[in-house]
């Protein structure tokens, strides 16, 4: 797998993770964040939470 280009998390303008893709492709409408080991838990549908500085699962929280 080492020959493969890095994976990038594609983030919509509202902070929602759209998908995770192979290779760097910066479009005008999406943010790209390299998927590191620290971001291994991130999956499509997660939302960026600025307070935690992390992507969280919106369905797992009651929004307390």
């Amino acid at each position, binding site marked *: *797998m080492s020959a*493969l*280009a890095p*994976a*990038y998390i*594609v983030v919509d303008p509202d902070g929602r993770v*759209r*998908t*995770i*893709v*192979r*290779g*760097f*492709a*910066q*479009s*005008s*409408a*999406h943010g790209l964040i390299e*998927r590191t080991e620290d971001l291994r838990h991130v*999956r*499509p*549908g997660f939302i960026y939470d600025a307070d935690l500085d992390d992507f969280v699962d919106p369905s797992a929280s009651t929004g307390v």
Partner: protein
Amino acid sequence: MMVPNLAIVGSGSSSAPAFVRKVPLSVSLDPANEPARPFLDVVTSLITSKEALFSALQESNPFPVDPEAVVVERLMIGPGGGGSLPSGDPDVRTYGGLPGMVRHDEIRFADIPDGEIALFIGVGGYGGDTYANTTEWIDASGSLETDGGVAVTDDSLLYHLARWRLHGHDLQPHVMLSVYSGAPEQASNRNGPGMGGALFERGGYSMYGDARAALSDGGFGQPGQDANSEIFLSLGSGGSGGGDDLGSMEGQIGGRPGGGGGAGYNPGSGADGGIKLRFWQWEVIR
């Protein structure tokens, strides 16, 4: 070479009948450095535009290309799912990852909106992941998404089997259950990439549209085979499940694009998705 003309009626000066034919166009996104090929094989994500695609088409072909007469055949493949981890219960089967879904259509080049086109290639699933990334075509009119495969458990197998069927995939139950290995009908998916092998089983075959594009698994204890780069309809086959006679319990990775990973204590990852684009031009022959 004939200049394409959309009018099917005769020219008026001749009573000879007119016929139309679909002429394949060669394509290279970088004609100065890369030879033109029969189709674009996008394996890592890229940003292009309608304008860049058109100039690439014109530079890759020695005759005039008319954007009004060009159609784009799109084959989009979701990433494969990773294999499952054994639950520890010997009575419960441990399945390989489901293959990526396939979307195949044809659009008029003229119907693509002007401007940017993002081609996002979904990353294959890790072993045990029950969610999937998507492969996407995004332009100014919206997005077209193709789902990837997921790891399946005994509980979710029938649900996913039905879901894949609804999307046109023909995952054969006897291979889902991996009862027969090596049988001629071991096409685990007659309409897409191969499914990963269950524990102690080989990966599934891939096939799409034309049986000549079928690809067998790579063998026991081996990764799935990557698609034949010369064949448009060729897709990746499934990775073998773990449990070979050497005692390795490692599942193997799926073949690109779209093959599922094999089950195991160290399950194989699914292969990345892909987008293949083939361009045609309608011409009138008199």
